[in-house]
């Protein structure tokens, strides 16, 4: 068994020596070595890496920048030459003084061949094109070509390169090799062995990144068949990444299979919210419905991967019983006229009602429990409010078992943000019994709850019943929302914009993919209104402005700006 290495930010390599090579005549300077994707050890830079730097595409199937090289598909074959050396061991020069290049008699695979100084790589010669066409033809002869029903259609490398290098007609007249079509590899993965081009990406990922020797190839020659270890299910927390890296439609996700043609999906940059690691994601949605999460590359956080647990944790967003209506005693009192209020009016009534309550609340009579699943901006606004009210605050810790690859034991996506803003106690959860006690003794009269069912964290329905005012915002109904006097339907992260701070202090932003249901609004919007009504300070009205304002006030975020976060975030001082 190989040992897997957890992904982490590697220290920048020492300024390595450079090397000059030519790609299709164009000179590029590239580092002599490139870190190994698994061990981080410096390895000689390869032709394909030089081509990438030169922005010359080399078609490939088995090569993946995040995996050990295998060199089996042979799609990346190129021609090359090296400076000719004379009998005196000195380079032979052309009449114009340039080094004479000795063209290699045989091609080389770009993905595995190390560079040497002065090397010339040719990726577009007639020979190279012929070799590619040959490899592609070989890959296609036994391929079932079931594109019309294949989930990979639209993101398939076979389709893509066939357009570039394929022939329109097959000369293959033999019977195709048949292999198992619907192999149940594990709880989340189905394999079509006929579509598999045996590139071993899935095997290498599972063995070398995850450390699970679950996949392998059996049989021989054209009958080679990918399979899981006999009698064992392919079931680790990272199996769905193999679906992403499979260049064809051989590995499919049971969850996504046949759900949607990929070209209909809108893609939105987002984050996973299922643990504190903060894996970068892309949300695939269509017509306000989410169909899948996929990992988005961020080498400071998750590489190119995400865990299955986080990836599949999206269905709750579309649940039928989502909280849709903003409720307040004021609008209820107006009943049945409340029905004729517009959502905006309902919100205005509710926020005004809460503001009035809070303004008149005696110091120390208000407490807040703010989920560490809320965004930095939301937590920041609540922290401001808490300070104005002298409120006792806390968040709910969620500690389970983590693993050594990505999954953090901390299942809150924003514990660090809650700590930085000063909402969470130290340790998180330490104030929860104090709040319970305050309610019991009667000096806490008002409780603001964001995104938690506190009845499951030591503040039961009996205690909630003693409160004068219970203000709750959430996404799905629970015991706390059921008992709330003010109920403010909030948004899933996919329905708003904002930032989270990961366990390692990476501040990252996410974008809005779908519309929230009913009255539901991004929490930062109504919290901003509430805070300004209570404190009398206006505060920024856009998420960008709010973030920048927060960065100015919260020491850990000093120096950060919304635009400066880019797609992959920036590091807070934690």
């Amino acid at each position: 068994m190989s040992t897997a290495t957890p992904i982490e930010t590697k220290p920048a390599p020492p300024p390595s020596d450079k090397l000059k090579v030519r790609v299709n005549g164009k000179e590029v300077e590239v580092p002599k070595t490139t870190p190994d994707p698994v061990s981080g050890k410096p390895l000689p830079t390869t032709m394909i890496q030089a081509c990438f730097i030169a922005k010359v595409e080399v078609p490939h199937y088995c090569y993946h920048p995040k995996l050990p090289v295998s060199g089996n598909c042979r799609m990346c074959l190129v021609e090359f030459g090296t400076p000719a050396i004379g009998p005196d061991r000195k380079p032979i020069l052309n009449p114009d003084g340039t080094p004479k290049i000795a063209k290699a008699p045989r091609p080389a695979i770009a993905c595995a061949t190390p560079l040497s100084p002065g090397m010339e790589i040719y990726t577009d010669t007639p020979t190279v094109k012929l070799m590619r066409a040959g490899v592609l033809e070989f890959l296609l002869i036994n391929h079932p070509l079931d594109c019309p029903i294949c989930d990979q259609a639209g993101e398939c490398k076979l389709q893509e390169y066939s357009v570039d290098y394929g022939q329109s007609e097959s000369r293959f007249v033999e019977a195709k090799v048949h292999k198992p079509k619907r192999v149940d590899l594990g709880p989340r993965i189905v394999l079509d062995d006929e579509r598999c081009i045996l590139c071993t990406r899935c095997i290498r990922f599972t063995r070398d990144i995850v450390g699970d020797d679950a996949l392998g190839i059996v049989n021989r020659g054209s009958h080679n068949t990918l399979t899981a270890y006999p009698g064992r299910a392919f079931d680790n927390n990272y199996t769905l990444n193999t679906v992403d890296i499979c260049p064809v439609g051989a590995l499919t996700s049971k969850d996504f299979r046949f759900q949607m043609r990929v070209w209909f999906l809108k893609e939105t940059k987002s984050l996973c919210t299922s643990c504190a690691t903060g894996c970068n994601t892309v949300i695939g949605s269509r017509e306000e419905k989410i169909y899948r999460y996929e990992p988005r590359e961020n080498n400071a956080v998750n590489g190119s991967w995400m865990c299955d647990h986080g990836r599949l944790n999206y269905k709750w967003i579309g649940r039928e019983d989502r909280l849709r209506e903003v409720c307040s005693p004021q609008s209820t009192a107006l009943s049945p006229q409340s029905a004729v209020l517009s959502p905006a009016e309902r919100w205005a009534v509710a926020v005004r009602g809460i503001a009035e309550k809070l303004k008149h609340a005696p110091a120390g009579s208000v407490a807040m429990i703010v989920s560490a699943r809320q965004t930095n901006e939301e937590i920041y606004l609540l922290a401001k409010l808490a300070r104005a009210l002298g409120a006792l605050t806390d968040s709910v810790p969620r500690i389970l078992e983590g693993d050594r690859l990505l999954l953090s034991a901390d299942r809150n996506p924003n514990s660090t943000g809650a700590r930085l803003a000063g909402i969470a106690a130290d340790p998180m959860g330490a104030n929860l019994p104090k709040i319970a006690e305050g309610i019991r003794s009667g000096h806490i009269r008002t409780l603001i709850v964001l995104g938690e069912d506190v009845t499951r964290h030591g503040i039961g329905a009996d205690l909630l019943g003693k409160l004068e005012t219970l203000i709750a915002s959430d996404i799905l109904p629970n015991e706390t929302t059921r008992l709330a006097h003010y109920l403010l339907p909030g948004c899933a992260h996919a329905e708003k914009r904002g930032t989270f701070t990961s366990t390692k202090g990476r501040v990252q932003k996410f974008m809005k993919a779908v519309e929230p249901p009913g009255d539901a609004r991004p929490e930062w919007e109504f919290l901003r209104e509430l805070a300004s009504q209570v404190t009398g300070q206006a505060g920024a009205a856009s998420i960008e402005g709010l973030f920048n304002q927060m960065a100015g006030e919260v020491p850990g975020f000093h120096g950060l700006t919304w635009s400066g976060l880019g797609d992959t975030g920036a590091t807070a001082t934690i």
Partner: protein
Amino acid sequence: MPQEYRQILKYADEPGYTPDIECYLRHGGYDILRKALAIPPRNLADGRIVTGPDHLRQEVMTSGLRGRGGAGFSCGLKWSFVDRKSGKPIYLICNADESEPGTFKDKQIIYKDPHQLIEGMAIACYANDVHLAYIYIRGEFAEGAKILNRALKEARARDFLGENILGSDYDLEIHVHRGAGAYICGEETGLIESLEGKRAYPRIKPPYFPAVLGNNTGTRIVSISGHVRKPGYYEVEVGKATLGELINDPAFGGGLREGRKLKAIIPGGSSAKVFKAGEKFKIKRRGPDGKDAEQEIELLNLPYDFDSLIAAGSMSGSGGIIVLDDSTDIVEALANISEFYAHESCGQCTPCREGSLWMSKALQRLTHGEGREADADYLMKIADNIPGGRTVCAFGEACSWPVQSFVAKFKDEFVARGAADEENRTRRNAGPTAVGKLPASS
């Protein structure tokens, strides 16, 4: 008249020669190991010390001893590539996975003179500071594995293996590992993977272009099979016999059977490109005046050595000479060879995995009445997309060279076979003639 020159097989077939250690010792066995272990270190004038192993390696380098694995690579040079400074253990592996069709030379040594192999290994190990060695033996050689294990046990009992061999302070252990029953386990990196308990997928290697080689030395065992009167293995001095002599000489193959004519020769195991009877080659050779001159040489006059066969467009490869006389159906012969390679491709890399089976399927069709006139060109196009550095290992060449050479040299036979099939199909499809067919009643 060239004769057999037996060095390696000197005693193997002598009456009464047995594979046990007593017999080997009676024939001077293990004397050289004893001598090698006794070579004292020498002090050089500059203070450096030449150890016994250093000395042995130098001897091997100057002797010009070359590998017998087809490429004829210099043994001393190969040893010089070993990194002795890394501090990591060095292993020696004996590749006894003899699997190339038409080749049965290693088998003779293993079955008849196992101690010679063991002694040779022990000397090589001592010279290279190896303390653990393996004999990777073809899985099908079950009896051979038994013989070797017995021999190893005997050698251990006599202090030729194990700890402190012959009081020299040198330790060596040799293990026999039975192969996984696949041709590709004989590819050196496939073999290592297999030995490590993994699937025998050959490793990718940096591009390597064989250097120009000097003259051959020593002897070589050739395996002659097919349509000769005396098929068998013959040990010859490299370059001393021609292909024709090996096939026809009474000392060797003994000629073709009565009334048969030569049709083709596969000169170096079934993957070598075929020669057609009557072929002539223009080959550069060094004349007595020391100058290179182009000479025309007939097939049967080709000296059986590494360079001449390469120059003639094929190779001496595994030393397996397969002779085909005029009774041979050349299409069937190729179909047979291709089926073997399709079955043995490890399937790691695309061109060989898909191409080897594709060619075999086409040839099965062609030999089972479903051929097409165009199949000759069709086969050639498939074969052309496999070799020449497109594959991970040389198996790409092994599976495509036979097809390329057979089809190129016997194209008329392939075309004729396909055309005949097409004609037969047209006749069948035309169905019974219209005679006797009744007009439709009205």
